[in-house]
């Protein structure tokens, strides 16, 4: 064996077939389409699945199915699962550094900084799951004999148009807050640079994140986003990855069932995020209950 390898060409590497991530499984696009993904210099990297409207609808079905379990899980449990994602990312750090460097044309050190920031971002949100309710909810001192409590609840299925330029850190910055608060997500990866997102799906699949909680589609944002924005079973949409014209069109479509809309906004992904990406996809439920009152007779409670 050893004599042979000395003389032969360098080993031929194994290419990866990138697939979608829907309902915890890795299907190809039902349309059978792929599109060419290149690095920043135009060198072929892989063929990514080019999702169709049907793929988008399937992803919504999967996300809806997963919503009850995920939103019903304890906040502590969700935190553990999110932290587990960070653990798995850390283990695959080198792979993501390579993919991000290829995708975004970054030097290895710069790509490493991006990946580290993304992992830290997961950790940051992992720690938020069991704190957000205390920070933005609480007891209301109503003027009457009532116990009255406001607590945040996830809004439901959130369509996330991942940022186009930041294929990994931007993606994580948009996705983690959505699922940290108990929503489920249908993500459209960066159109030009979908590979880090598709690899993230492999991490999610092995990180105790229940199937369907995150669904990742690659393809043409302008093709997949409109059916999601118009979908009656999608509750919210993050328009980060849409340009101005598409964002407006999608916001109009989203009005049909009054989706919660997060408009595109300038973000420095290296800065510690605020909580607005979480609160954008939370409802506030206020529950009232009589307390009775201590009357003179003491008999009214």
């Amino acid at each position, binding site marked *: 064996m050893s004599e042979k390898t000395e003389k032969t060409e360098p080993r031929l590497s194994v290419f990866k077939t990138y697939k979608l991530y829907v309902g915890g499984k890795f299907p190809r696009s039902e349309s059978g389409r792929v599109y060419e993904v290149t690095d920043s210099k135009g060198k072929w990297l892989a063929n990514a699945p080019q999702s169709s409207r049907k793929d988008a609808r399937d992803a919504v079905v999967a996300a809806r199915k997963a919503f009850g379990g995920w939103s019903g899980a304890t906040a502590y449990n969700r935190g553990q699962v999110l932290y587990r994602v960070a653990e798995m990312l850390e283990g695959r750090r080198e792979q993501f550094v390579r993919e991000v460097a290829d995708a975004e044309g970054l030097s290895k050190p710069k790509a490493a900084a991006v990946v580290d920031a993304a992992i830290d971002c997961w950790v940051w949100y992992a720690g938020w799951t069991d704190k957000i309710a205390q920070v933005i909810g609480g007891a209301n001192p109503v003027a009457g004999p009532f116990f009255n409590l406001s607590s945040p609840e996830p809004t439901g299925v959130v369509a996330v148009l991942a940022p186009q330029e930041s294929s990994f850190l931007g993606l994580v910055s948009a996705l983690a807050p959505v699922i940290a608060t108990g929503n489920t997500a249908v993500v459209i990866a960066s159109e030009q640079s979908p590979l880090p997102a598709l690899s993230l799906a492999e991490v999610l699949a092995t990180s105790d994140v229940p199937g369907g909680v995150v669904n990742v589609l690659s393809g043409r944002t302008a093709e997949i986003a409109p059916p999601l924005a118009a979908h009656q079973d999608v509750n919210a949409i993050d328009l980060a990855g849409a340009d101005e014209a598409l964002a407006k069109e999608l916001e109009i479509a989203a009005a049909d069932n*009054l989706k919660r809309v997060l408009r595109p906004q300038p973000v420095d992904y290296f800065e510690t995020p605020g909580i607005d990406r979480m609160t954008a996809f939370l409802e506030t439920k206020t*529950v009232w209950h009589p307390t009775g009152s201590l009357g003179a007779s003491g008999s009214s409670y």
Partner: protein
Amino acid sequence: MASVFEYAPAPESRSVVDIAPSYGLFIDGEFAEAADGKVFKTVSPSTEEVLSEVAQAGEADVDRAVRAARKAFEKWSALPGSERAKYLFRIARIIQERSRELAVLETLDNGKPIKETRDADLPLVAAHFFYYAGWADKLDHAGFGTNPRPLGVAGQVIPWNFPLLMLAWKIAPALATGNTVVLKPAETTPLSALFFADICRQAGLPKGVVNILPGYGDAGAALVAHPDVNKVAFTGSTAVGKEIARTVAGTRKKLTLELGGKGANIVFDDAPIDQAVEGIVTGIFFNQGQVCCAGSRLLVQESIQEELLESLKRRLSTLRLGDPLDKNTDIGAINSAEQLARITALAEQGEAEGAERWSPACELPTSGYWFAPTLFTNVTQAHTIARDEIFGPVLSVLTFRTPDEAVAKANNTQYGLSAGIWTEKGSRILAVANKLRAGVVWSNTFNKFDPTSPFGGYKESGFGREGGRHGLEAYLDV
């Protein structure tokens, strides 16, 4: 409604309120005619008497008011919060002083019983101003970071069911956070907002900080679409809410919507029946059912259906419908002929689709807009009256067998504003409240409001919250 209980009339005096024969638009601290000179009449729904003639805002007036608000914004937003607070406290106090006057006015213009304007609307209106007054100089501590900034000019469109209360919900947080306001009250109930303009004058509020534009939907649409409006707040129908969401799409305008509802009032077999009956009555007959969070779908556990309905019908037979100014009146007039027609048509559709209709013996006055309290049984989820918001005193009764079924039926609606739970079992309350997709859940009570308490919907009942700390967010750049 003749019964053993015959009450002598106990009318509240109209003399506490002076309604002028005509009113202008309130722009930049002055009352003014509409640019095109248009006016409309506002009538008392209980008598169809014309109360006053009111200037009707058009697009040019909207523009003028927005410009006034923009000009006022610079100084108003730069005021120390403690100073803004004092203006709001002044307004709150003046409302309290004039609350009887405003209660009578509101009853005349809206048709709702004086009992409700006096004991519910007005105390809450004052309370909202007091509550948000206190926030004005404490915004750094509200949890939106240090020094949160106002948005600018707020365009606000409010409905006719709680004219002054909705004004308070909109204006109090807007001013506390340093925004200026252009508010369009509904065309059937413009008067209390115009009286509020006078309160702003008495309070010495700087000109242009609050502008009031009575008018129709076209004025509201112009306000929402105005390029120099930074924040849009709307309370009203879901259909209009969707239209507004489309209008502001692609802009930087911040939007909050408080829209329709089809609240489920769930009564379990162990509920205290008498209290539940009171809650059901409050839930659907308060303000003639013209309440977005009304408990318009009664979900009753099958085993107690008969007993509950018997009790409920007996209770409904004691409700007194008639002169809204009479202090004994429980049910007043429907706000407008248009709304009466809508309620009538939906109730007829309920019958046509096979639901069983019942109303207590009830004589309706011969003038004005009236609808007897109405109950529908044999209602299924497919019935229009179980799905569409009626916005009137019409209750649809459905049944369930298990808590899971109750939750599934309660959530089976495009709305998600309110729900009620009646049971003696605490764990059941918490479990069911957890699963209901609604912004407000009342357990063993219904239709309770408080300025400290966020209110707003899930799903197509809109987004954003009004009231409480949460209500500030809608008016801050966060």
